[in-house]
């Protein structure tokens, strides 16, 4: 099926209006999230947004861009003015995909997620109307906060075509420390302790890097400051004899971004990929339980964001193995609390529920979907 590339609001609105007449759904699952949610209906028009920068208010540290603009292009433009968008996602993802899928990573600890950075946006609703919410000021409570509502909306409530985001100053230096151990359990306590000291990091993640677990904490800023923070972390580490500092990396933001993208590179090719979100203080336990499954079934990639309880796991699994992993994920979720979302299921296996448990606010979300997309044209059935 061919894909229609679109940038401008008028063209998108026109397409939505036409689709309304012909009752043809419009589908955009993004580049890295094609397997997230229920599969689209057979008959649909596939769309993909493209675009670039609209305006960069350098002194105000805000930027407005087409939702189709790629993150990498935006970062390159911002870098010219010593700024960045502090989101760690792949360079080829569009801003719209990052926003509607609530993509976040290790930098969330220091800078928040896209929810904390979005100031305003425009979208085409299911009637083909152009809706502009929020603005370009850093605080704004005029009207309902539909900008943040759209974060994680999976393209079901409108086609976001323009976004306004706050930027940050480009840190002059990044230092990241890797601590390794045979068990991820102690990571949670160490991260918690670090939050209350000078070792409070701007970046945290952990991963299984056979045969050991690696916790990475990062500090961004001037070298004098990051040196103090690293020393503080080393002091904390002394209280954890089972963890060892095995690597300290230095570089600029581009070096750090490269490091982060290497960690998550496996996800783009994984036939099976699931996000599990548990209470943060149980991240290590969740990782350990997944590793046990991996040891006795099939090797899994596992990486996690301990401050947020977010664990990504998967790999090249057969349908049978994915179903077995799903059972473990459910067990983990039931014992620790939280939820799971499958980002990729082998063969879109219908026996694996993409979202579990179903969010308790589903009835309300359905009503809101009907209000914004009365004919159910936009990514119909993906979640709702």
């Amino acid at each position, binding site marked *: 099926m061919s894909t229609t590339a679109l940038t401008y609001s008028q063209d998108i609105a026109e397409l939505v209006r036409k689709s309304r007449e012909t009752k043809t759904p419009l589908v955009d699952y993004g580049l890295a999230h094609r397997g997230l949610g229920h599969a689209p209906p057979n008959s649909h028009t596939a769309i993909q947004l493209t675009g670039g920068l609209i305006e960069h*208010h*350098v*002194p*105000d*540290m*805000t930027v407005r861009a087409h939702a189709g603009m790629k993150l990498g292009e935006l970062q390159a433009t911002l870098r010219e003015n*010593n700024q960045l968008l502090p989101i760690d996602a792949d360079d080829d993802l569009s801003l719209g995909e990052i926003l509607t899928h*609530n993509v976040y990573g290790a930098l969330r600890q220091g800078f*928040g997620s896209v*929810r904390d950075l979005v100031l305003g946006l425009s979208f085409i*609703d299911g009637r083909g*109307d*152009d*809706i*502009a*919410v929020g*603005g*370009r*000021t*850093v*605080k*704004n*409570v*005029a*009207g*309902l*906060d*539909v900008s*943040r*509502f*759209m974060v*994680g909306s999976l393209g*079901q409530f409108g086609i976001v075509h323009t976004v306004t985001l706050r930027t*940050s*100053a480009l840190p002059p230096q990044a230092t990241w420390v890797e601590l390794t151990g045979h068990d991820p359990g102690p990571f949670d306590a160490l991260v918690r302790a670090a*939050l*209350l000291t*000078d070792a409070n990091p701007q970046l945290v993640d952990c991963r299984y890097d056979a045969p050991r677990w690696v916790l990475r904490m990062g500090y961004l800023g*001037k070298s004098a*400051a990051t040196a*103090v923070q690293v020393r503080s972390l080393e002091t904390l580490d002394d209280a954890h004899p089972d963890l060892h500092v095995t690597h300290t990396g230095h570089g600029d933001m581009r070096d750090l971004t490269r490091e982060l993208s290497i960690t998550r590179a496996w996800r783009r090719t994984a036939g099976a990929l699931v996000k599990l*979100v548990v*209470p*943060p*203080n149980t991240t290590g336990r969740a990782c350990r339980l997944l590793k046990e499954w991996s040891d006795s079934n099939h090797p899994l990639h596992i990486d996690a964001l301990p401050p*947020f*309880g977010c664990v990504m796991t998967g790999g090249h699994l057969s349908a049978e193995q994915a179903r077995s992993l799903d059972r473990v994920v459910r067990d983990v979720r039931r014992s620790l609390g*939280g*939820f799971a979302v499958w980002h990729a299921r082998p063969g879109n296996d219908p026996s694996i529920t993409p979202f579990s448990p179903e*969010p*308790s*606010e589903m*009835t*309300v979300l359905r*009503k*809101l979907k*009907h*209000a*914004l997309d009365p004919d159910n044209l936009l990514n119909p059935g993906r*979640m709702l």
Partner: protein
Amino acid sequence: MPASAPTHPVIPELIRLLGPDAVLTDPQELRVYECDGFPIAKGLPTAVIFPRDTVQVAQAVGIITRHNLQVIPRGSGTGLAGGAVAYGSGVIVCTSRMTRIESIDLDNRVAVVQAGVLNTALSDAILHSGLRFSPDPSSQRASTIGGNAATNAGGINTLKHGVTTNHVLGVEFVTAQGEIVQTRATGLYDGVGPDLPALLCGSEGILGILTRIWCRLVPIPRHFRTMYAVFNDSQAACRSVADVIAAGLVPASMEMMDGQMVRVVEEAFHYGFPTDAQALLLIEIDGVERTLDGQLQQVVSICKHNGACDIQHCSDPTRRAELWSARKRAFGAIGRLARSYCTQDACLPRSALAKAIKEITEIGRRFGITLSNVFHAGDGNVHPILLFDEDNPDEVQNTLRCSEEILEYCITLGGTITGEHGVGVEKLHLMPKLFSPQTLRTFTDIKTALDPGHHINDGKLIPSDTLHIELMQPATPRSPGGAMVIG
């Protein structure tokens, strides 16, 4: 029991549900609830009720809507836009008895509170832990966390640490149909699908009544430098703010008082501020101790470069507390200047601040209104305070017209009509100037989806078809305040 006999048939039903001590109907006592912190718009409720938990709220909402009355959620009534007031008829659902901190989970940095818990009560309860609930409106000793969430309140340290919505992980709310909806409580830091808690934050009680909030707890900054810089020219102070931001520095707070405000605060509380100042910037930096002096020096040189004539700084906690109390008490001190005041709340791109402050002063002069300014300069969030006499109808109307002109001007600079206080009824008439008809219709569609009968706080935040509150026209030539046209 109330002094006067219950008149509306809803009252006995509410008394049966909640008990007589939780239903207020005495007209004298109801007067306390006829307005919030925006004294221009007043309306007497049919009754005020004080439920103790979510189930009581849900059952009460069912009763009130069955009688086709408006449900008006209210916390402490410190709102500055008339959002918690009953116009026409309606029952105020006050959360002031819903004050339980239900759980504190320090490991996961989350507390679950009932909506009526006061902002500072939560931070006080966890002081020992090194964590806090970060949103800090100046009203934080009086305002509720439910009210803070419903208005998406800002405060002094929001420049670096974010507004209320950045600290609300999940909410429970009661819809107009009396359903209890819980959002995102399982994932804490993430959720499935669109961000419903974010939609509820700042919705000013028009989508439902917030009954429980999952509050994110964050580390209390441990090291600070606090400074103030005095300027002979408010433009220079504004330029300093823009320059600090453009230099990539993120102070925890950057607050500004104009000359008049400095004098009022100094006369009232004697903090040692120079009374001939034209502007004073109060700035705080927090972070790793070793880095603070360097950052402070950068801010100091930016202020000096812009002509600051006196700069004082401290790291001493007592002096720091004094300086911030000066800022927080500024609103209280205004009472020394006039019987009533109206606090405006536009937000601007920070680079437009200097221009805006100049023009706002000029607009005040044109209207013959005494105008003071104390505001969150780092956020570009200006609070021109218009002084007037609420018993003088001409002054009320003049104040409203002056406010309107200020806000319209701010829109032309790329700004918004409210950075933190909300639209309420006060700024309803300006919403079409900020949003297209399609966007306004979308807001209404969202409201209708959750509240099909428009029973909850209708006529606030978004223009309503059924309840039209027109502040710009006095009801009668000699009556203060605005007319309320209901139909």
